[in-house]
């Protein structure tokens, strides 16, 4: 007796092909062919555990993520022409990547994620800890979740590290990315939370220095009242924003250099006093600053 396989994902209860699903399939198959085979291959090789429908608990789904990643990787290669140094130093298993934050838009995170997917061996899915308000935004919250990006909650971070994942943290937070032009390539105060998590979960820390982000959207003034009104962390006044409207969001095509340093293994329980943790954090901070200084000295030009 032969059985007829019915694809329940397309047919509804009465067996009608639903218009929405049909349209989505059609568009999907068109876009699907636009995704680089290399990206698909590398997504398949990710060590992440997924369930029978290819989702993880946070909502990461490679079949959706490939489209967003295709764009990120195109930007990484051809827009920012990112040069990566020392990516082989990132150890396997759980790891925290700690970087300097810059550039108003979180392109530094996007570029680190692209580098870890395309240039690391084996490929890794980078998890960034995103701002809490992202979770309340329609479309954006879903988009972020499907691409493996996680709400910035310490409990989430611990769980990810226990699952041996690769997490990127910018301890400067929004104060770092909202830096003004005059403060470029300096670091504002680092939060201590990442170090406590690393100690608790015995996770190595890799300092990452990013060159090029500070010039992509130089901000001369932070219009705080406007930011507060709009519920944003900052409201930058740049040469192009807000003067050119939405076009002002387009960052300059600066050249990115990303330096990965040797992993640091810290000893401790995570319950030390703030001053003890601060000493350890300062070691990481110094490594990042040293590499930033080195990278700036090596750089001949902002754009190439």
């Amino acid at each position, binding site marked *: 007796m032969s059985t007829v396989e019915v694809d*329940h994902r397309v*047919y509804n209860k009465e067996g009608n092909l639903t218009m*929405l699903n049909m349209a989505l399939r059609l568009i999907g198959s068109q876009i699907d062919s636009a995704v680089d085979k290399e990206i698909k291959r590398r997504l398949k090789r990710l060590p992440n555990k997924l369930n*029978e429908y290819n989702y993880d*608990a946070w909502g990461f789904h490679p079949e959706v993520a490939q489209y967003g990643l295709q764009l990120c990787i195109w930007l990484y290669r051809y827009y920012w022409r990112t040069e990566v140094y020392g990516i082989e130093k990132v150890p396997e298993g759980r790891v925290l990547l700690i970087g300097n934050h810059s550039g108003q838009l979180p392109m530094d995170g996007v570029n680190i994620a692209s580098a870890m997917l395309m240039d690391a061996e084996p490929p890794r899915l980078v998890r960034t800890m995103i701002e809490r308000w992202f979770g309340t935004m329609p479309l954006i919250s879903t988009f972020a979740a499907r691409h493996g990006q996680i709400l910035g909650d310490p409990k989430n971070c611990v769980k990810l590290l226990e699952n041996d994942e690769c997490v990127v943290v910018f301890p400067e937070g929004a104060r770092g990315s909202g830096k003004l032009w005059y403060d470029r390539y300096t670091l504002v105060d680092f939060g201590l939370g990442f170090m406590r998590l690393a100690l608790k979960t015995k996770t190595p820390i890799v300092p990452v220095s990013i060159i090029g982000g500070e010039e992509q959207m130089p901000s001369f003034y932070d219009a705080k009242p406007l930011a507060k009104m709009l519920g944003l962390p900052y409201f930058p006044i740049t040469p192009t924003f807000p003067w050119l409207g939405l076009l002002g969001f387009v960052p300059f095509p600066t050249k990115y250099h990303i330096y990965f340093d040797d992993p640091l293994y810290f000893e401790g329980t995570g319950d030390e006093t703030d001053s003890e943790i601060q000493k350890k954090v300062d070691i990481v901070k110094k490594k990042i600053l040293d590499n930033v200084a080195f990278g700036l000295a090596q750089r001949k030009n902002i754009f190439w």
Partner: protein
Amino acid sequence: MIGRISMTTRRKKVLITGISGGLAHQVAEMIPQNWDIIGVGLRELRPIKGRKIEFHKLDITKNKLEDIFRRRQLDCVIHMAVNDNPRVPIKHRHHINVVGTMKLLEDCERYKVKKVVLLSSANVYGADPNNPVYISEDHPLRVTQSYSEISDKVEFDSYCRSWMYKNPSISTIILRPCHIIGSQVHNNLTGYLRLKYIPIPLGFDPMIQVIHEIDMARAINACLRYNLSGIYNVVGPGELPLTEIINIVGGAPFPIPHVVGYSALRALWALGIGPLPAPQVEFLMYPCIIDGTRFQEDFRFSPQLSLSETLRSTVLY
């Protein structure tokens, strides 16, 4: 401490409250043959094959319930007489869910019942954009911050918890399962998934955890085997995004901006014709993903049905 209940010559007796419900019926079906089942419910009990059940049609808030405790030496009480229907006025629901439970637990204490299994729900954590993934049992119960209509569920959970600590000699197991679905259960989620056209909040697609009614009945039965006390999250085979779930059960989703949907639902609810209170929408917008590993380890429990089996059985009777 984990220990199996020792086999005695006297047949053990279990009281199941709310036995007429879809899930409780399946729990009763799975109770091992060496147990006698005494059932209490408001509706007539559908017969269970191969089992003789002593059934009492009564309200658990009535004093007649205590007579069962007097006449029968109960070993275990599985309390499932909880009213989840949001259309029932809160006063009435509070009376059943909180006052009724208080009386029942008082009887358990007085007549020295050895084990009590209480069915709460993971909804008490609330769906919140700030929820971490994998909520553990010590997470605050935040649902009433925005969803006051189910305050009775939180009070039920809190009362059971304090009673558990007050009676360390009684094995008290409070279960907080994720969404229970299946062909027999009727709750907010199954009702929603059985719609032909399913409204979804535009732009939101949270992960949702489900457990099949058979797996849940199995989980409740696992509680009979181990003399432990505690609060336990119970999860099924995993979690999926809302739209994927709708695709699998075969509904036709249509997105509505949540502001519109929320207001419409609130207006309908105020008029008395709304299907659900408006804050219920939050469960379709934000995640409430719980960590069920403690239960799985302590009770050697693992769900038997896969995600697709679990979901398809909800609609395809």
